[in-house]
Each structure stands twice: as structure tokens, then as C-alpha cells.
């Protein structure tokens, strides 16, 4: 059954037959997190639509952050910058096309947000004023900042022709770019 009131998001009330052991775990853990079981179930379904179903298609892998940090520290910054420049445009284009079927600046911002939310490669703060400002904060060491900066700058330049400004510290990268007239966002939210 679908419901809609004014501008509020449309909802449905589907009934699922859930495994009791899962249901018990969900109830307990949602209380630990200060959420209702319904919120948690919604979050997991959203996670599936935005990330999990694409993860297997793209080929992602999940690692302990401490292991990844140790590995990154042993690679030269020049190699990582080259890797970031190579991967940025490819990953951004692939993700936007597979998820939203359209390449646009709003979709690029959504792509970065999904990387922050689901891949946990960094925390993200997005400020929109006269320009877009994306602040990426992480704890994976200086080399990861080098990679991320190269990745994002190359994606913006080669996909949208935008020359973004950037600042970098050992735990953060700040990207600043204008909201140019690239095609509007398409596809389902």
C-alpha cells in the first residue's frame, strides 16, 4: 500500500516474513543504536539499492582500515597520485552510469556522498554557496590524501572539464569548484 501526503516522500507498507533470529538481533541492535527496528530495516534496504547491489558488479573489497593504512604507507606518493589520476574518471563515470544512468554534477556529488557513506573511505561535508566545497576527512594517512586529491581532481577535470581548487593535509582534502551548467541530474533518487 502506498501513501503520499503533500511533499512528503511516498511510502509503502510491505509485509515481510523474517527469520526470527535476525529479527531478534535487529531489535536488540537497533535499540543499541537508538533507532527503531523499522529505521534500521529501511537503512539496510537503502544500502542495498545504493551500494550492495552495485558492489558485486563493480568488484569491491572490504579491508580492515589499519591494514590498508599500513599498506598505503609503504607505497610512494607518486605512484598513488598516478593511480588516483587514472582511477578517478573511470570510477566516477562507471558508478554514475550504473546507478543513475546519467553523468551530471549533482550525480557526481551523490557519488562522492555514497563513497563516504557506504565505502567509508572518508567522512564528507558538502557546503554549497557560490561554489561547491567538498571536505573529505579520513584517518588513513597522508598517502591516502594524495590519492583522494588526485582521484577527485582528475574525475572533475576529465568528466566535467572543471578545474577544481584543492587543499590537502595528512587527514583531509578540500575541493572547491563552481556549479557549472552540466546536464541536470536524471534517474531515480
Amino acid at each position, binding site marked *: 500500500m502506498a501513501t503520499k501526503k503533500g511533499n512528503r516522500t511516498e511510502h509503502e507498507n510491505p509485509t515481510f516474513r523474517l527469520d526470527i533470529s535476525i529479527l531478534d538481533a*535487529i531489535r536488540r541492535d537497533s535499540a543499541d543504536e537508538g533507532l527503531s527496528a523499522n529505521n534500521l530495516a529501511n537503512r539496510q534496504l537503502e544500502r*542495498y539499492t545504493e551500494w*550492495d547491489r552495485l558492489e558485486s558488479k563493480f*568488484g569491491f573489497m572490504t579491508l580492515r582500515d589499519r591494514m590498508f593504512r599500513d599498506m598505503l604507507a609503504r607505497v610512494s606518493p607518486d605512484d598513488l597520485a598516478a593511480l588516483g589520476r587514472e582511477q578517478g574518471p573511470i570510477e566516477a563515470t562507471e558508478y554514475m552510469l550504473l546507478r543513475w544512468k546519467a553523468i551530471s554534477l549533482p550525480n557526481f556529488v551523490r557519488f562522492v556522498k555514497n563513497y563516504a557513506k557506504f565505502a567509508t573511505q572518508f567522512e564528507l561535508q558538502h557546503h554549497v554557496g557560490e561554489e561547491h566545497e567538498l571536505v573529505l576527512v579520513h584517518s588513513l594517512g597522508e598517502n591516502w590524501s594524495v590519492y583522494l586529491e588526485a582521484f577527485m581532481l582528475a574525475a572533475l577535470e576529465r568528466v566535467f572539464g572543471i578545474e577544481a581548487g584543492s587543499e590537502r593535509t595528512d587527514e583531509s582534502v578540500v575541493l572547491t569548484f563552481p556549479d557549472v551548467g552540466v546536464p541536470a541530474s536524471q534517474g531515480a533518487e
Partner: protein
Amino acid sequence: MVRTIARECFTLGTYIRWHLLVLATRLRRQEAEDRVRCRGLAVIWETEVARSNGFEKYRSVTLRVSSPVMDVARDAASEEGISLNSLANRQLRQYAEWDRLKHKLGYVTVRDRVFQHILEKLPEDEIVELGRQLGEVEAREYVMLNWRIMSPDHFIRFVDNYARYSGQFHVEHHDEAQHTLVLFHNLGSKWSLYLEAFMASALEASLGVTAKTQRTDQSVALTFSMVVTGERLPNGLARNGKKNSNKRTSEGSKRINGKMVAP
């Protein structure tokens, strides 16, 4: 006079008939209520007995989900060839077994080709050293956080969960005279080196077990002896230290990616 008596008799008869009708209706309603109450009690009793015996496995739950999410989920489930219900169960199981721990332990997800490129830049001895160091602690941390107690069963489940959710490798577990864990991947020979060092070190540090290993560029096989009772503990119950009633005998049986397969 006769007419008056006849009228009164008729009135009295009508009254008695009406009264009997009311009584019968009341009796029928009472009987119906009792029946419903008994049936309700029986259902509750049966449910309780079923739960205590571990028979009741599923419960119907109505959720309020945003329509765009439902639309994408419905399409994707049909594309995968599974029902929406199976998808909901899988996603919620993933939360219970993996996602809730990911935030606590600290994980990061990267494209496998990026990771493979980084691996290629590292010398082999450093990869082995890293695998040894992390194997000592990673298995123990995951098991302690999830199930509180390190045991052979929990170690096997740790490997199962890594295979199912992390995308680092696929696993086959052969449980015969000895246990053999075969890990498959397509990240190249350096990842085999890492996995071999990681798993051997994890087994030794967690359970004091020394494993024999074999390695190719796409697989690692670990063979070792230990007693696995095969108790399948749902995460929640295990955390509280209570055992589930579902048990299996390990003799001759085989588990592939967490699923039991008859010999």
C-alpha cells in the same frame, strides 16, 4: 371472557418464545466466545511450545519503507531472481553478521583493481610480515566482538563471514579427517602470500593450531586438525552466551560458504 383468556395465553406464549430465543442467542454467543478464546489460547500455547522447541523460524513483520527504495529493490530482486522477502532477509542478516561490526572495528571498502595495484607495489617479504602481524589480532578481535569466545567453530564462522561479506576471497570448507579451508580469489600471487601468512598466523595465535599450507596465484589451502562441534549460534544469542538448539554433527559433513552440505 374466553377471548380475553385466549389473548393473554397468546401474549404469554409469545413472551416465553421470545425469552427462549434470547437465552439461546446468549448461549450461542457465549459458546462462540469460549471457542475463540480456547482457539486463541491454543495458538499462543502452540507458538510458545514451537518457539521453545526452536520450530518457529519466521515471523511476519510490516515495515514502512520509502517507495523509491522499494521500487529499486523490487527491480533488483527480480533481476537477481530472488523474492523481495529473501532480499529483505539477506540484507538484515548482513547487518546482524557484518555491517554492525564494520563500524565498530573500522573497515574500508575499495575497488579491487585499486587494491591489486597497491599490492603490486609492495615487496613480498613486507606483505608476508603484514599478513602475520594482522592475522594475530584480526581474527581474535572479530570473534571476541561478535561471539565473545574464541573457539574452532567461531574461527570457521569468522572465515565464512569474511568470504561472504568482505569480497576478499571465496571459501570452501572440507570437514573430513582434517579440516581443509580452500580460499579462492583473483587478486594475484601477492594476495595469496598475504592470505597464507594471515590465516596461518590467525590459527596459531587464536587456537594454537599449526596449519599446513599450499598456495597458487589464485588460491590458498590450509589443512589442520581441530574439533569443530558445528553449533550454529545466531549472533545475538551467542553474544549472550546462550546456545541455539540447532546442532549438526561434523563427521562427514561439509560446509560451503556457511551452508551445510550432506556428505
